């Protein structure tokens, strides 16, 4: 891992900038407020980061802020975590999924059209999952029928993060049902203001509604909005999914570490700072977090060295999800009965807010979404340990266990 002069200088620079620019008290300002306040904060923070060049360090050279090495990006993310800066949740799909897909698979024309828009604050969402294709993307059924220079879309997407705010959508749809399921998918860019698009936010068990369903009723998309060839959607989607691997986990694991003092303060508030059982579990959590940070760091180091292997990301995500759950669980134990009272709803704060029950429920985002723990275990067992895959098709027949 490069910890040389360049990195140290950048670290100092980012740290100083954050000290001056992270909106003071943003957590309190985001507690028990409506969506508008949240969107306004995200926009303000996005613009600041874009201007400073810290929102797009992963973009190629030539683009604003772009051309940074992975190790420089890591420094930026670590410092964002350290400074407890807001996460750019509203712009995440735009900055990572959309941008990286366009850089990797888009045409020059598409890049020109959309990337500038992203820098100007256009919000994107991802339309991959469907009600019957959650973990199993190959089963998706939203249809895209070619009519001349347009595709006509009918169907439904679900679990689309912040779709209700989105200007554009990364849409994976089926253009062919005749061959193998993965071969019939096509990747399209959809203007969310198109006729026939409707969005219904999903009320979550946290009280939030950061996910939404999207319904398509004869929605038209021009053929030039296709990314890659017709039927190449599966491959393009892989580029989308790989776009932020690693860095996000570095940031999130570091955020856990910097959030540990919240547990300690809770212990003091609850007068249980001398409880040996709680202290033992706290000590054990600290080490688990160190391990999660080390795993994420090692993973990024491997990526920098071009030595990433299939399954590496699954290990990090699985371990992170487990540790995050432990974090929130310990918080609840410390908080006692009080942890079961609504202590305010903090928008966009995601993890380790100190509202332990909220944090606990949010931790399921990491064990279910983006490939559930179960899917990650399959990948690790099959692709790292070389154990047999689950059979492709499977007859339900009676037989001894």
């Amino acid at each position, binding site marked *: 891992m490069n910890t040389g002069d360049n990195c140290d200088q950048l670290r100092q620079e980012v740290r100083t900038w954050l000290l001056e620019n992270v909106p003071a008290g943003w957590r309190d300002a985001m507690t028990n407020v409506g969506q508008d306040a949240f969107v306004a904060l995200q926009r303000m923070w996005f613009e600041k980061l874009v201007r400073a060049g810290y929102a797009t360090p992963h973009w190629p050279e030539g683009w604003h802020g772009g051309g940074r090495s992975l190790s420089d990006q890591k420094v930026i993310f670590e410092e964002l975590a350290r400074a407890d800066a807001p996460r750019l949740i509203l712009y995440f799909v735009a900055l990572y999924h959309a941008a990286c897909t366009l850089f990797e698979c888009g045409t020059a024309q598409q890049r020109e059209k959309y990337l500038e828009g992203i820098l100007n604050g256009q919000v994107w969402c991802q339309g991959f999952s469907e009600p019957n294709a959650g973990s199993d993307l190959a089963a998706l059924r939203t249809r895209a029928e070619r009519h001349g220079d347009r595709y006509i879309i009918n169907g439904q997407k*679900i679990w689309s993060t912040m779709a209700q705010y989105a200007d554009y959508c990364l849409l994976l749809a089926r253009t062919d049902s005749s061959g193998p399921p993965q071969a019939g998918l096509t990747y399209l860019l959809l203007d969310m203001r198109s006729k026939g698009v409707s969005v219904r936010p*999903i009320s979550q068990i946290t009280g939030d509604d950061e996910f939404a369903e999207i319904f398509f009723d004869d929605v038209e998309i021009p053929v030039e909005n296709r990314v890659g060839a017709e039927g190449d959607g599966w491959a393009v989607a892989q580029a989308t999914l790989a776009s932020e691997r690693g860095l996000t986990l570095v940031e999130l694991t570091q955020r856990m570490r910097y959030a540990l003092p919240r547990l300690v303060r809770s212990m003091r508030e609850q007068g249980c700072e001398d409880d040996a059982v709680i202290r033992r579990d706290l000590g054990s959590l600290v080490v688990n977090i160190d391990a999660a940070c080390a795993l994420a760091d090692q993973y990024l180091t491997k990526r920098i060295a071009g030595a990433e292997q299939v399954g590496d990301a699954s290990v990090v995500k699985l371990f992170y999800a487990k540790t995050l759950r432990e974090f929130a669980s310990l918080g609840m134990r410390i908080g006692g009965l009080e942890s079961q009272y609504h202590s305010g709803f903090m928008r966009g704060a995601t993890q380790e807010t100190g509202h332990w029950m909220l944090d606990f429920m949010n931790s399921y985002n990491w064990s279910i979404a983006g490939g559930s723990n179960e899917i990650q275990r399959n990948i690790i067992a099959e692709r790292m340990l070389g154990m047999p895959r689950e059979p492709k098709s499977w007859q*339900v027949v009676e037989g001894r266990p």
Partner: protein
Amino acid sequence: MSVELNELQESARKVIGGAGLAANESATWSQLVELGWLLVSVPEALSGLSMGLPGACILHSELGRGLSAAPYLAATLAVDAVCQSGFSDREHWLDRMIAGELVTASLAESGVQTSGKHLCGDVQGVQSADSARHMLVWTAGNELVALIALNQPGIDIVVKNTWDQTRRLFSVRLNDIDLGEQVILAEGASAESLIRRLLVQRDFALAADAVGGAASILAMTVDHLQTRIQFKRPLAMFQSLKHRCADMKASIDAAEALLFDAARKVRHEPDSPDARIKAMGTKSFATTMFARVAEACLQLHGGIGMAVEHPCHLFLKRALLNEHLGSATNVCTQETARVLMAGTR
């Protein structure tokens, strides 16, 4: 389980199951009053069913299974306290309570103290306090059990916004409440034993609620896995999910066996120190089990479990709240160890 208890369980399951999950609070309350469920543990001498702790556990378990909103637990504590007390007006109070006038109580630890001839302090976890005219209170120091009117000066009732939406809890603040004007149920040594009896019932009830809730969410989860198709097969075909369900089934059965075994063993002396230890052990085992089961079931539901429209989260939130009501889990385990150690040469 006796034939009697079995019949009670069957009829309760029919009633609660018929009303659907997390049914309307006041409708459930009226129904259970009508069915005479408040009499389940009342002694025969007072025209009750005299089914003691085992009977109460049956009903609490079914109410947990249905995520019932009715303040049955609080009400039965008050009913039992009145039955146990020798005060003159007892029958009159009992008649009103059995007829459906709610006297509520706290499901949490007491924060009440006597100060001269007055009561002070916070009572947390009071069920449906806005529907009750009176509340049963006991002091943290075990000196006193009383019924106090909730509409008198010096009482502040605050609704607590719990994550669990299936029950409504309040905190009640007592500001120098004059003892002379309240109904005293027990004082001194008899208060100590009555309070122990109440805590035993409370902990058993929470344990029973947990057992019923866990069985219910597991059944729902198995149904989900049987019907949800991924990778062209029902999720229930995946062995790792099957095995997790099997482990949950085993721990639910263990909690249920423990619950009824302990309830049977202490039913004749529910105010004894031994009953208290058994209740604490059962409560901590069952509520911890329910919380872990509900956590796992949410995971097994996948994305849909995160949506408010699906009832999965109602179980999780009730389970996590149960863990923090009644005797604290760490106190339960420490006390259990203490008793074992004290009894070992």
